[in-house]
């Protein structure tokens, strides 16, 4: 991958989640694409694969992973990559993505997206591996900026510089999660506008937007609830800077009715159109100072105490089966 223009703009999509299977397959609502969590479908058969095949009859599917472990001591396992590539061939995904993170060490997989220190050593490790992953998959590969709840003393640069260095050295794409910029900015006292201005716009292949949960001292990236106004503001700023790029709504906790999700996708289209129109006029639709002020004002506001939090979204599991019968 060399330029974002080699990756198509698919429009606006949503994450494919179990509670919506029936509605999606029966109604086939007009959506530009679905994003799947790759790991949920890296199995040989059964319901997950059946439902995926039905979805592929109508929709473009993009693969997004949560377990590659690009930054851990062990690195991506060959077996994982083999299964990921096999799935990619079946879905026809135009790119594959995962996260700027690490997932465990000493043979343990923590199933979390742990933040990396922003150091030269981490840049070397992640960029070398990312290049190998992209070559192995024979598809454009992108990494997503994560939300985080701690920062390291060893970091020697801001996150946006780290993302830029890795994507440039590895020649890969950036999956820009606008909500994660907002979450991390609140949690670490960053300026979200400066963050957005610092990312390599020409590397962005896709944008994620999602809801989050304010628990008082920090914000958790729960993917729960509708996208909040300041995140829409940041999204429009991103589109004004980057241009037309595939956009995905993530909603993984307290998953609503399909129609609520579809309405959120309509909102994204509307925000995107507004930002693209402003970009065409050489203007902006966003009051950056108001975004900064809203973030500051959030401190001290009432918070939720039961956030729920399942990284990677729900999976279709055997434990939920309820149709056992004695033959």
């Amino acid at each position, binding site marked *: 991958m060399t330029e974002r223009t080699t990756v198509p703009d698919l429009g606006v999509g949503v994450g494919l989640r179990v509670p919506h299977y029936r509605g999606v397959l029966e109604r086939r609502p007009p959506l530009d694409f679905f994003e799947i969590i790759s*790991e949920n479908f*890296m*199995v*040989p*058969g*059964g*319901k*997950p*694969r*059946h439902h995926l095949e039905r979805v592929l009859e109508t929709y473009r599917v993009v693969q997004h992973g949560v*377990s*590659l*472990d690009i930054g*851990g*001591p062990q690195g991506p*396992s060959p077996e*994982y990559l083999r299964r990921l590539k096999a799935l990619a061939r079946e879905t026809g995904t135009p790119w594959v993505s995962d996260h700027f993170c*690490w*997932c*465990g*060490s*000493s*043979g*343990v*997989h*923590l*199933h*979390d997206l*742990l933040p990396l*220190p922003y*150091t030269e*050593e*981490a840049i070397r*490790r992640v960029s070398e591996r990312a290049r190998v992953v992209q070559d192995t998959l024979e598809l454009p590969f992108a990494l997503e900026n994560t939300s985080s*709840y*701690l*920062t*390291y*003393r*060893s970091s020697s640069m801001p996150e946006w510089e780290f993302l830029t260095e890795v994507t440039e050295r590895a020649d890969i794409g950036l999956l820009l999660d606008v909500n994660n910029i907002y979450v991390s900015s609140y949690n*670490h*006292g960053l300026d979200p506008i400066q963050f957005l201005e610092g990312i390599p716009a020409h590397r962005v292949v896709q944008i994620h937007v999602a809801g989050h949960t304010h628990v008082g*001292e*920090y914000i958790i990236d729960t993917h729960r609830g509708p996208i909040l106004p300041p995140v829409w503001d940041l999204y429009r700023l991103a589109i004004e800077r980057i241009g037309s790029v595939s956009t995905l709504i993530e909603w993984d906790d307290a998953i609503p009715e399909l129609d609520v999700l579809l309405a959120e996708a309509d909102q994204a289209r509307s925000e995107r159109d507004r930002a693209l129109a402003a970009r065409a006029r050489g203007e902006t639709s966003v009051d950056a100072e108001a975004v900064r002020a809203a973030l500051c004002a959030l401190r001290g506001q009432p918070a939720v105490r039961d956030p729920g*939090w*399942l*990284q990677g979204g729900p*999976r279709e*599991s*055997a*434990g*939920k*089966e*309820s*149709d*056992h*019968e*004695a*033959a």
Partner: protein
Amino acid sequence: MSELDRLQDFISAALRRRRDLSRDPVIVAQAEREIHATSHFSPARHLEIYREQFWLRHTQSLLEDFPGIAGILGQSDWERLVEEYLLAQPPASFSLRDLGEKLPAFLESADFLPQRELVLDMARLEWAHIEVFDAPALPPLAPESVATLDEEALASARLLLSPALRLLDLSYPVPELRNRLLSAKGSLVDLPLPEPSPTRLVLYRRELSTVHCRLRRAPFTLLEALSRGVSLGNACEAACALGEREAASVEREVATWFADWVARGFIVGVR
């Protein structure tokens, strides 16, 4: 070991600690060396956010996969089981689907649990559910592929069973208990514990649903032998060796059993 590896080893070990990290002065001191404090949280408290999630996420995943065990044990014993299991068998696979793979083996020596034999049977059933749920689907054996075999060839034939099939030889009637627990959506507070009763099951996938059927001793023995790659003739002999009644049953019913198993998709090939 690089600086990055050392940092990641420290965090990985800390997140698997069962208790609040702020109570451990060694962790607190190292966290202060590695992680920034903020105006509202100490370094250890920042790490604690991730540690809490490690336990929440894996407890939730095991609960989804083993609702029957959770129902038998109730909250307190269930939480202890999850804690002991995750400490003894930390997650190693990239997929949460594999998290409970070693739970049945772990339970064999989990002496601290009440009703351990019942729980162990439930674990075997629920892990089998997971394996059958997403196993590959292979087309059933076409009856004509064995119709041409003469008697000698048939006796030496090895039949391939569906990968979406598991045989379970259990001591308790756990499928019925599991169904009641799932229906009750809670613990076993008002449900009587079942008495031991030999329960031989075939768990398999029909269409996309996981279903089971019970088998008597002779057909179960025969099918179990086939699953180990024993030839058809020797598998029948193993079933006949169980006793006179079983031998008579094999003689009388084996053709019916096979017709039924082929129809249900248990058998997918012959070699």
